[in-house]
């Protein structure tokens, strides 16, 4: 085990974590403001990736692809909010789960219909190809480093948006008291659409960014969605800060667990069983982390106390 490898894995964990944050932020906002559990958030991630792949394929521009990803996901989000989600705010969580599960079926199969079952390819932009040498002589992919930077920048921007802007004030007011915000004369249904579209745009952005290092295919959103759920359960539902902390914890646990657990078991097991046990435990590590947090704090690290 070298320090270089450790540093590299920490960076990988950070990169994974900030991408999870982009997903988790939208989920936690939508839950905090509207009280809605949205399983179809993963579909918005997928839509972003497909839009980016299609636009990049047509124009060759990665920036245009990112813009397309965000606008396509935001547009899909706004449409879905307007025609389906809006009817679910007053329903119980069971109806929300079911309706958004139905949306996943529609989005996934609809996308398969349009684009076929084969994965699409999204290229890393030339300017971000290849490794960069960090202080200490660590070689690290330039693109992944850019992802970390983008993720942290979005986190900071989102923090400012919520703390400083009119929209942010309304979002915070909406989290506390729906009647109050309506009484203040804010058009609540527009606010909800905007919040939903904002969350969707972040998911679309994440889908496009990650799509360039993984393949763009139907069903890519759901594993990320479930991890994002773990993130917001750990962080506390409704808390942006919790989502960031939770996302980084999950990203680092997953990445470092995959490396260290097999080595750890190698200390006292034979190599092949160490690899097996280690891999099994590593694949479950974040869920174990979640269980531990839950026993300690049932409403998450930054969640409101019951």
């Amino acid at each position, binding site marked *: 085990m070298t320090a270089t490898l450790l540093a590299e894995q920490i960076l990988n964990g950070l990169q994974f974590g900030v991408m999870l944050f982009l997903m988790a932020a939208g989920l936690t906002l939508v*839950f905090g403001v509207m009280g809605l*559990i949205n*399983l179809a958030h993963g579909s918005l991630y997928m839509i972003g990736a497909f839009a980016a792949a299609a636009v990049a394929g047509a124009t060759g521009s990665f920036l245009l692809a990112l813009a397309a990803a965000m606008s396509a996901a935001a547009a899909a989000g706004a449409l879905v909010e307007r025609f*389906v989600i809006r*009817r679910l705010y007053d*329903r119980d*969580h*069971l*109806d929300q*789960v*079911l*309706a958004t*599960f*139905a*949306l*996943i*079926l*529609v989005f*996934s*199969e*609809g996308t*398969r*219909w349009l684009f076929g079952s084969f994965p699409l390819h999204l290229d890393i932009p030339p300017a971000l190809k290849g490794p960069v040498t960090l202080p200490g002589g660590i070689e690290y992919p330039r693109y992944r480093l850019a992802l970390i930077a983008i993720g942290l920048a979005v986190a900071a921007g989102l923090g400012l948006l919520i703390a400083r802007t009119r929209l942010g004030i309304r979002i915070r007011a909406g989290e506390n008291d729906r009647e109050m915000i309506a009484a203040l004369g804010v058009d609540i249904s527009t606010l909800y659409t905007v919040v939903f579209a904002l969350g969707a745009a972040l998911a679309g952005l994440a889908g496009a960014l990650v799509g360039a290092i993984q393949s763009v295919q139907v069903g890519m959103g*759901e594993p990320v969605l*479930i991890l994002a*759920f*773990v993130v*917001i*359960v750990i962080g506390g*539902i409704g808390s942006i800060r919790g989502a960031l902390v939770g996302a980084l914890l999950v990203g680092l646990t997953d990445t470092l667990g995959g490396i260290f657990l097999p080595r750890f078991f190698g200390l006292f097991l034979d190599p092949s069983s160490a690899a*097996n046990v280690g*891999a*099994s435990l*590593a*694949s*479950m590590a974040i*869920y*174990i982390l*979640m*269980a531990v947090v*839950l*026993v300690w704090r*049932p*409403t*998450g690290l930054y969640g409101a106390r019951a």
Partner: protein
Amino acid sequence: MREGAVNAVLLAGLVAFPIWAQAADEPFLITLATRAVILALAAVGLNIALGWGGMVSLGHAAFFGIGGYAMGILAFHAQTYAPLMEWPFVIEGTKSMPVIWLVAVVASALAALGIGLLSLRTTGVYFIMITLAFGQMLYYFTISWTAYGGEDGMSIYVRNGFPGLNTLVPVEFYGLCLAILLLVLALNAALVRAPFGLALNAARQSPERVRTVGIDPGRLQLAAFVLSGAITGLAGALFADLNRFVSPSMLSWQMSGELIVFVILGGTARLFGPVAGAILFVALEHLLGGVSDYWHVFLGALLLLVVLFARGGLVGFLAGRVR
């Protein structure tokens, strides 16, 4: 139509269908019906937690899969003649369904106890997400469990046996599965009328009330969750036997979602709701799947319509909103 009449029609259909299919020499349709019956059993299990207990579990595929793997592992060791373990005592594999069922029920009940203990510390959305996460945890565990096929799962050459039956004959296996479903439904019906059912029902509506009469609602819910997991686990063992195959996909979160769909499509907290839902789902899958490869789009649209406009599900729609 009253709910009792709807149930009677469903029951008659379940009995008559294989007789008709047998006469028409359509063994495939019997297998399809067996699939519906087994999925119905899994959903009946979920309905106890979700419908009566009010616990929206998005991780019930875990119990379904544990039942499936109980069957797969025991049968795998039986067909390879390798004991399951040799120390401190020898455990051999088995091809006997009753033994497999017992193991499946106990294993999934224990898993439900552990998951329930942790998850019931929370309520609402947290509960949904945590059951989902535990389901994923076991899903990824089976994927990394290379000893039993890992991602590819494992096949069993010959369906397991039940004393006095030839389980390889579709209609006999169907009859066996239907008998189990009816037995569990009878237990379910008794449970709902028994003190436990009444208390569980009240705990869903007003936990505070249940506490103030001296009953801990959390324990009621945990017991219901364990029972629910055990039934779904039993269904998992049958499902694996039907396909002679078990893989991580039985534990996938889509499976959990589909189980919820069966319950809602049919009608929550209705005895035959999950049965109606599972039959409808399998029928749609068969009919729409024949028309278009993308039948999930139509299923999704139908589900949306049911959730948005037809609350109470199929049985609720037919029987009216009395409960």
